[in-house]
């Protein structure tokens, strides 16, 4: 029965130009979106490659420099002596902490074009590396790049509403409803049959084009976790689409004419896709304002100035704490300089920590609030799920920050003792400098989070459809 209705619907609607116009619109936007995402991923990959090439070049130059200096061919000043742990640790030997694009990154640019995806790690204090940009609320960034996620979150609902705003009202206005309902077919069956065809059309087109676009743009589905992520992506898109079809059924069930339905549905689109996300964003920022970035930079400068001003006292205190590091009176100025710099970095990090902590606390409160209220709009839920699956959302970025911070500590712990002991670095010790290892987020974690969001979406969709079907029972067939 449903199949028969769906088939008839297809025969009837295919003669209509609207469907083909919509198909063309979807095709162009999806392919353009995927292309945009792919070129961004490409850019990121090239940037990271460039950084690594720079790093390799520098390290080769350091080794060459060490050999030259040892052989007496050159005598570099201490601040750029490749044998000095100070020069290597601060500048010459710095390595990059990089976050490569996740397998599905081309599908959603997300926030990845706003957040750094590589850091230059030196022995300097952590704040100089992380920059500590404000983690923007994801909702606020909806007006980001034109990527596939944008097409799905914004345009898919419009396409769905365009093909289903007159699902039942259109039949009533055309007069075919009365004839259909004079046969043993219930209104819910009719609605579901018509939805089935439209959903199959829109979703198949969307899925085929997305996958085709993804493969064309070089996504490797054999990469670890790529296939299950893509499957869940499809699931989230399907649930989100069904939510909108459900809304169309619900509004049709009210028994108003097609024009009113169209107006009501566009209104709901505005509410769910634009209004709730923006209000939520404003609400969250009002509830937990993040101190201005200028304020934070000021605080850091003050701390830095204070540390410089008090360096003699700090130095004395530091040596009281670490008498074993006290350079002998005869020690060269380099050693004294190194110890002082370590002491000052340590003090600076200690003083800045409360500012950073406060900042992090506010951000995480905002994030918490956003997590709590994202259930208000399926658009936000979908976005959270899609960004997470593409690895361009907040979670993977935080994961990267943590890894980078650890790496920075590792770097400091490796270099600082050498600095203070004024060890002369050999070519072998350059190879021993801590290396950056990117460790991908646990796929199970990602699937768990995105799965929860998808489940919530599916529940919402099922709920809306159920209410719609119930409301159809009161639909005025005549009058």
């Amino acid at each position, binding site marked *: *029965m449903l199949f*028969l*209705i769906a088939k*008839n619907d297809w*025969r*009837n*609607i295919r*003669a*209509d130009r609207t469907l083909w116009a919509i198909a063309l619109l979807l095709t162009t936007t999806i392919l353009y979106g995927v292309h945009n995402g792919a070129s961004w991923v490409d850019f990121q990959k090239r940037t990271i490659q460039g950084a690594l090439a720079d790093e390799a070049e520098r390290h080769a130059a350091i080794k060459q420099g060490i050999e030259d200096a040892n052989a007496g061919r050159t005598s570099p000043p201490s601040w750029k002596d490749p044998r000095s742990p100070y020069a290597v640790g601060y500048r010459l030997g710095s390595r990059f902490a990089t976050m490569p694009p996740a397998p599905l990154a081309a599908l959603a640019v997300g926030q990845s074009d706003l957040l750094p995806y590589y850091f230059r790690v030196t022995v300097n204090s952590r704040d100089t590396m992380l920059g500590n940009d404000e983690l923007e609320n994801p909702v606020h960034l909806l007006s980001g790049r034109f990527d596939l996620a944008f097409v799905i979150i914004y345009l898919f609902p419009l396409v769905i509403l365009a093909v289903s705003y007159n699902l039942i009202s259109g039949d009533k206005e*055309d*007069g*075919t409803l*009365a*004839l*259909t*309902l*004079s*046969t*043993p*077919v*219930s209104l819910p069956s009719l609605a579901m049959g018509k939805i089935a065809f439209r959903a199959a059309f829109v979703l198949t087109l969307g899925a085929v084009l997305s996958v085709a676009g993804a493969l064309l743009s070089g996504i490797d589905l054999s990469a670890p976790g790529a296939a299950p992520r893509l499957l869940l992506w499809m699931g989230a898109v399907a649930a989100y689409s069904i939510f909108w079809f459900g809304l169309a059924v619900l509004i049709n069930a009210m028994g108003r004419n097609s024009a009113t339905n169209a107006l009501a549905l566009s209104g709901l689109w505005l509410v769910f896709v634009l209004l709730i996300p923006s209000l939520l964003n404003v609400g969250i920022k009002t509830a937990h304002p993040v101190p201005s970035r200028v304020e934070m930079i000021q605080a850091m400068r003050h701390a830095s100035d204070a540390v410089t001003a008090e360096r003699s006292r700090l130095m004395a205190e530091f040596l009281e704490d670490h008498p074993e590091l006290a350079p002998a009176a005869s020690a060269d100025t380099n050693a004294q300089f190194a110890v002082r710099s370590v002491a000052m970095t340590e003090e600076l990090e200690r003083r800045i920590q409360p500012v950073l902590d406060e900042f992090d606390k506010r951000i995480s409160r905002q994030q918490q609030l956003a997590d709590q209220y994202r259930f208000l709009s399926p658009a936000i839920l979908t976005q959270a799920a899609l960004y997470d699956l593409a690895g361009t959302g907040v979670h993977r970025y935080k994961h990267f920050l943590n890894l980078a911070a650890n790496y920075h500590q590792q770097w400091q712990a490796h270099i600082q003792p050498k600095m203070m002991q004024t060890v002369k670095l050999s070519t072998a010790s350059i190879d021993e400098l801590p290396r950056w290892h990117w460790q991908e987020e646990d796929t199970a974690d990602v699937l768990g989070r995105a799965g929860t969001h998808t489940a919530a979406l599916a529940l919402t969709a099922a709920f809306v459809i159920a209410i719609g079907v119930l409301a159809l029972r009161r639909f005025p*067939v*005549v*009058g």
Partner: protein
Amino acid sequence: MLEALSLTKAYNGHTALNNLNLTVAAGEVFCLLGANGAGKTTTINLFLNFIPPTSGTAKVNGIDVASHPLESKRYLAYIPEQVMLYRNLTGIENLSYFTELAGCEKYSQAKLLDFLTAAGLQAEAADKRVGSYSKGMRQKVGIAIATARNAKALLLDEPTSGLDPKASNEFSELLKRLSGNGAAILMATHDLFRAKETGTRVGIMKHGNMVAHMKTEELGHADLERIYLEHMHD
């Protein structure tokens, strides 16, 4: 067969149909006459379960339509004043869809064409889109649907209004054939002449009440008009 038992429909205090008791047996053609708003269409909509009754029952083939709407519709065919079909489909496609929807056997193309030509549609029109059909042609597809569905009961709501006399006459002949095959037909109409010609019984409705009903064989054309007009005077 069709049966109304104390069938009543009221909208916000206004009684559209008051305590209608009516039986249309197999082979009968019952014509409902009356001014606009007399309750004819309400009666038909109640039999189709398009509106719920305020009280009383409407039965099709002994099945209460309000409690078993889908089952009752298996025996029912409906021809509204305007048979509106899917404009983008051909006559044959429409016929095929509506009969399959009704749960009938899947007819062959030749058989479907037979139904259409038997209903008076020209064979060459059957493959054309319904969007280009005249009202008469669409009514014929409606008849073909009713025939193909082999309906036991037929509800018609002013099916001949706006048809030219020849088309109207052809329509009446088709109805006679259907009732000859044992269908119970309930038809709302303004056409007294057609009612006398095709109907076996007529009922005159006024303000939701059936004020008179009689057998047509006992009446002349003039009698029917006289009785009708008498009842229309307030």
